C-alpha cells in the first residue's frame, strides 16, 4: 500500500506534451528521497482536459497539477510528497478556492456537468494492469451475463436500455444483436470499429488508451449474445499507444482466462485479435471495414444483405464502435432501467464529445444526452478564447454540419442534430469564431471527401470533385449565382445516389453552411469579399496611414519586399507583390495593418 499515489495522464495529448519525461523524473526524484515504498506513480489514460496537459493528480489530497513541466517536479516532490505542503501555485487554478483550500475536480466548471459512463475509468486506473480494472467491477458484467443470464436475456437488456450506436448513425445496438443472433451459421463474428477517422474526434482512442478492458469485456458479452467465438478490433495504425495498450489488455485477459476457452466455466469460448487499418476514412463504413479486415481494398458494398446476415468472411457479424462497447458492461451490471433514466427519451445515456478548435478547454467531455450546446461550449468548454465570439460548432466531421450561434440552445441528441441538418457522428465538436470562413470550412471538408472517396460509385467519386471545383471558384471570387444553384443541386443528387454513408453524407457540410450562412456565400459571389478574411484571393492588406508611425518592422519582415516607405513615414503595401501571408499584420505593434 502506498500512502500517496501520483496519477499522471498518459493519453496521446499529454504524452505529446512530454508526460513520459515527467513520469521518469517523478520516479527518480521519489527514489532519491527514499519514498519509492510510500509513493506510487501511475500512468493513466486521458483525464479529458487536454488543454491543460500534461496533467497530474496527487491522491489522497486530490491536488490537480496542470501544465506540469519537468522543472516543477523537484518542488512538487520535496514540498508536497515529502512535507505534505501542496504547491498551490502549480495547481489548476479553478481547483483552488478563494481561501486557498482545494476543491474537488468535480466542482470545477469543466467536470461539474459531466457524467462519466464511457470514460468512467479513464484517468482513474492504470490501463496496463487488469487488476485495477477488476477492482472497479471489471469483468463482473461478463460474469453476470455468462452465469446468470441467457443470450436472449442479454439481448433483451440491450434492447430495453435503448443504447444507440455511438459511431454516427445511431442504430439501436440491441436490434443489431438480435438480428445477428437469429441467423444460424457455423461461425459468427463480433467486430469493433476503432477506425476513428473523423478529423477532430478522439474519444475512441482515449477509451482504448485509458480503459481497453471495457471494450474487450463488452465484445465478449456481444459474442455470448449472438453466438460468436471470434472477435476482431479494427484499429487505426495512426494510434500506436492505443494499439499497444489494447494488445497488453488482450494478453492479460487471456492469461486470466477471461478470453479463450470455457470462460467462467460456462462453456463459452471467445477470443480477440487486432487488425490494423492503414489510413482510409471509408473503412469506418461497416461493409468497407469488413472488406479491409479480409485484407482487401476497403471498398463498401451494397446493403442488403446486412452484416448481421452476411458480414465478415460472409458470416453473420455484429459491428459496434468503441464508445458503444464501453457503455455495455455498465448496462449489464446496473440494468437497462438505470441507463434509460439518463439522457433523452429517444437517445438514452451519455455522449462523449471531443472539444476542439476555438475553445478554451479543449479536451474530452462526456455529458448526458439532451445537454444543450450552450452548456457544452460556454460552461464546460469555457467559451471562445481571446475575446472572439462564437460563430458555429461543427459536429459529425465530414458527414456533419455546422450549427450556427442562433441554435446554440439546441439539446444535443441524435434526432435533434439530424433535424437541424447536422449529425452526431462520432462526436467531434469543433468550435469556430468569427475569423472562420464557412465557405472555406465547407471546402476543407470537400477536399477531405474527394481524397477519401474510394472511387467505387460515380456520384461520390465524380460528384464530390465537381462540388469542390465550384467551392474553389467561390473562394477565388470567380463564381456566379448560377454556381450556387448548381452546387445545391449536386448536393441532393449525391446524397440520393451514393452507395455508402461516405457519399450520402458528403454534401452535409455544404448544405448546412448554405442553409445557415448563405449570406457569406453570397458575399463571396456577389461582392467578391470574404467576410471572415480567410479566403486569400478575396482579401487585401492595407496600412492605415493615420496609425502607421513608420517603424519599418513590417517592411523588414515582409518575405517578398512588398512594403515600401521610409523611416517615420507611413508605409504602403504593393498589392501586386503581396502574397498575403499576413506577417506584416502579426508583426505590427500599432494595429496599423488591416485586412479587408
Amino acid at each position, binding site marked *: 500500500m502506498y500512502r500517496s499515489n501520483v496519477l499522471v495522464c498518459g493519453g496521446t495529448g499529454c*504524452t505529446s506534451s512530454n508526460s513520459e519525461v515527467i513520469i521518469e523524473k517523478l520516479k527518480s526524484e521519489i527514489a532519491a528521497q527514499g519514498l519509492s515504498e510510500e509513493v506510487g506513480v501511475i500512468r493513466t489514460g486521458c483525464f479529458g482536459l487536454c488543454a491543460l496537459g500534461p496533467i497530474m493528480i496527487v491522491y489522497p489530497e486530490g491536488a490537480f497539477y496542470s501544465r506540469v513541466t519537468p522543472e516543477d517536479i523537484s518542488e512538487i516532490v520535496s514540498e508536497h510528497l515529502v512535507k505534505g505542503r501542496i504547491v498551490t501555485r502549480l495547481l489548476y487554478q479553478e481547483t483552488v478556492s478563494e481561501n486557498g483550500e482545494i476543491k474537488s475536480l468535480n466542482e470545477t466548471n469543466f467536470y461539474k456537468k459531466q457524467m462519466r459512463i464511457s470514460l468512467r475509468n479513464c484517468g482513474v486506473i492504470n490501463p496496463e494492469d487488469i487488476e485495477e480494472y477488476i477492482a472497479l467491477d471489471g469483468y463482473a458484467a461478463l460474469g453476470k451475463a455468462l452465469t446468470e443470464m441467457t443470450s436472449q436475456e442479454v439481448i433483451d437488456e440491450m434492447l430495453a436500455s435503448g443504447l444507440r450506436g455511438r459511431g454516427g448513425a445511431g442504430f439501436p445496438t440491441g436490434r443489431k444483436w438480435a438480428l445477428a443472433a437469429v441467423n444460424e451459421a457455423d461461425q459468427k463474428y463480433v467486430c469493433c470499429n476503432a477506425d476513428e477517422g473523423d478529423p*477532430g474526434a478522439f474519444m475512441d482512442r482515449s477509451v482504448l488508451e485509458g480503459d481497453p478492458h471495457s471494450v474487450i469485456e463488452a465484445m465478449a458479452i456481444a459474442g455470448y449474445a449472438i453466438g460468436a467465438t471470434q472477435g476482431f478490433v479494427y484499429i487505426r495504425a495512426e494510434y500506436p499507444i492505443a494499439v499497444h495498450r489494447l494488445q497488453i489488455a488482450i494478453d492479460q485477459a487471456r492469461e486470466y482466462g477471461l478470453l479463450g476457452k470455457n470462460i467462467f466455466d460456462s462453456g463459452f469460448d471467445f477470443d480477440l485479435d487486432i487488425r490494423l487499418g492503414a489510413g482510409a476514412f471509408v473503412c469506418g463504413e461497416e461493409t468497407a471495414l469488413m472488406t479491409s479486415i479480409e485484407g482487401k481494398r476497403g471498398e463498401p458494398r451494397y446493403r442488403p444483405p446486412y452484416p448481421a446476415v452476411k458480414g465478415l468472411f460472409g458470416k453473420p457479424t455484429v459491428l459496434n464502435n468503441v464508445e458503444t462497447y464501453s457503455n455495455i458492461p455498465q448496462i449489464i451490471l446496473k440494468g437497462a432501467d438505470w441507463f434509460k433514466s439518463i439522457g433523452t427519451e429517444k437517445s438514452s445515456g451519455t455522449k462523449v464529445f471531443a472539444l476542439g478548435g476555438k475553445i478554451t478547454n479543449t479536451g474530452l467531455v462526456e455529458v448526458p444526452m439532451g445537454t444543450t450546446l450552450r452548456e457544452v461550449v460556454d460552461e464546460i468548454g469555457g467559451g471562445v478564447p481571446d475575446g472572439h465570439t462564437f460563430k458555429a460548432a461543427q459536429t459529425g466531421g465530414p458527414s456533419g454540419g455546422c450549427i450556427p450561434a442562433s441554435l446554440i440552445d439546441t439539446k444535443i441528441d441524435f434526432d435533434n442534430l439530424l433535424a437541424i441538418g447536422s449529425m452526431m457522428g462520432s462526436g467531434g465538436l469543433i468550435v469556430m469564431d468569427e475569423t472562420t470562413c464557412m465557405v472555406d470550412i465547407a471546402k476543407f471538408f470537400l477536399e477531405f471527401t474527394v481524397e477519401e472517396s474510394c472511387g467505387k460509385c460515380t456520384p461520390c467519386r465524380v460528384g464530390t470533385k465537381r462540388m469542390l471545383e465550384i467551392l474553389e471558384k467561390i473562394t477565388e471570387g470567380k463564381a456566379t449565382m448560377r454556381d450556387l444553384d448548381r452546387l445545391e443541386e449536386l448536393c441532393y443528387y449525391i446524397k440520393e445516389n451514393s452507395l455508402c454513408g461516405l457519399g450520402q453524407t458528403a454534401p452535409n457540410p455544404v448544405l448546412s453552411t448554405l442553409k445557415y450562412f448563405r449570406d457569406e456565400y453570397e458575399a463571396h459571389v456577389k461582392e467578391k469579399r470574404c467576410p471572415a478574411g480567410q479566403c486569400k484571393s478575396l482579401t487585401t492588406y492595407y496600412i492605415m496611414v493615420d496609425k502607421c508611425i513608420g517603424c519599418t518592422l513590417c517592411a523588414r519582415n515582409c518575405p517578398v519586399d512588398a512594403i515600401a516607405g521610409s523611416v517615420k513615414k507611413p508605409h504602403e503595401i504593393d498589392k501586386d507583390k503581396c502574397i498575403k501571408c499576413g506577417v506584416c499584420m502579426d508583426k505590427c505593434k500599432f494595429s496599423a495593418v488591416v485586412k479587408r
Partner: protein
Amino acid sequence: MQKRISTLPFNDTPEQAEKLDAVIQGLKGQDGAVMPALHHAQDIYGYLPLEVQRKIANGLDVPLEEVYSVSTFYSQFSLTPKGQYHVSVCLGTACYVKGADKLIEKLIEKLGIKPEECTQDGKFSLTACRCIGACGLAPVLTVNEDVYGRLVPEDIEGILAKYAG
C-alpha cells in the same frame, strides 16, 4: 489519392530480406494476410517498393495485382522512401481551424519541397496527414516520433534546426 511511385533503385540487405521471409512464412495460409504483411514490410524497409510487393505476392500466393491494389488504396502505405526526418502536419479540423495550413506553407518555403516529397539530400520529407487525435494541442506536427503542439508558423524554423545538424 494519387500515389507517387519511387523511381529510385531498390537496395535490399540480407537482414531485411530474412525478416521479410519470416513475416511471410508466419502469415502464410491466414485469411486476410496481405494487409498485415504490407504493414510489416513497411516497418522493415520504410516503404513498399515493387520488388517487396512482388515477394509478398509470391510468398502468400496471391496475384501481384491484388497486393498492388491494396498498397495503393491505403494512405499509410508509401511507395516512395521517406526522408531521415519525416515531417507530418496534422490537417484535422481542429488543427485546420487553428491555422495548420500556414504551418505547411512555412514548411514548403523552408524545405523547398511540396507535401509527399523528399529533399534532395534525403534528410526531410513532408506530408499533410489525417487527424492524429492530439486536437487539444492544435495545431500539431510530428517529426518522426516527436510531437510538437500549439504551434505558430514562426516556430517552424527552430524545429527544423533541431534536426538539420
